[in-house]
């Protein structure tokens, strides 16, 4: 397959995955809806990074820069969401401070 044909094939695959996401958004998947949508998005992102941005062909320094960015993003996301999800309910205001609110 010529490089141009390969690029067109990847483009078609990307649009097909987007169509799959759109179709699934009309199906009631319950709590699985978000993980499924993100999983498809990760698949599309993988295709773009690997075939269009050619990260695997880049030198190690560029790969390191990109992986560092993704790693920092993941740490930030996981810790922030874990914080919000595990917070205890705020205590009630003491009676003698209630008038200040």
């Amino acid at each position, binding site marked *: 397959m010529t490089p141009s044909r390969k*690029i067109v094939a990847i483009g078609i695959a990307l649009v097909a995955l*987007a169509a799959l996401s759109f179709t699934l958004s009309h199906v009631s998947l319950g709590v699985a809806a978000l993980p499924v949508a993100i999983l498809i998005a990760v698949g599309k992102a993988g295709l773009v990074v690997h075939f269009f941005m050619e990260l695997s062909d880049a030198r190690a320094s560029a790969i390191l*820069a990109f992986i560092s960015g993704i790693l920092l993003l993941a740490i930030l996301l996981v810790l922030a969401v874990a914080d919000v999800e595990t917070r205890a309910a705020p205590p009630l205001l003491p009676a003698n401070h209630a008038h200040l609110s």
Partner: protein
Amino acid sequence: MRELHADHFESLEVQAHAARLGTWIFLCSELLLFAGLFTLLAASRAHDPRGFHEGMTHAARTLGSINTGVLLVSSTTAALGVQAMRENRPSRAFWLVLTTATLGLVFLAIKIAEYAEHIDEGILPGGHGAWFASHADAPLYWTLYYLMTGIHAIHVFVGMGLLVWTAVRVRARLIVHETSYKLDLVVLYWHLVDLIWIFLWPLLYLA
């Protein structure tokens, strides 16, 4: 014959590598800008799932999805443009890069139509507008919607400008087969803009 690389680089190959590494580091800094926004989105959604559900059921899913298709096709034409330049076909590369920029314009036009529709309905950032009188839970979703899609749209606009500028330089033979890496750098930025939308679309419109 004029050297194609700057004096302080040993060779064109070294210059291209330095430019590519610099671009990847720049893309990572862009990623970290959006990291803060995605974190805000994820934490807000975890904190207020009902408000997000209410907001998302009213989002312009069809227009957002058409825009996804437009950006994915634009990434494909951009990659084809890079390939054409590598094959020493500058005229083909010029038209492909210009097509990519035009698709960026289509994306922005659809985005403006989407904003106009929401503003007409009385949906403004910060929970302002008549729509929120009957949808009191959704202000946070819509504020993040305008913030994130707005910042993304600014990136599309900048990317379009860079693509047109690069296309003109290809046409004027200021970027040639040997220096085609200069087109790669701009197209890398365009792919990042696409990557960000790949995640924004499901999180703001679909699920």
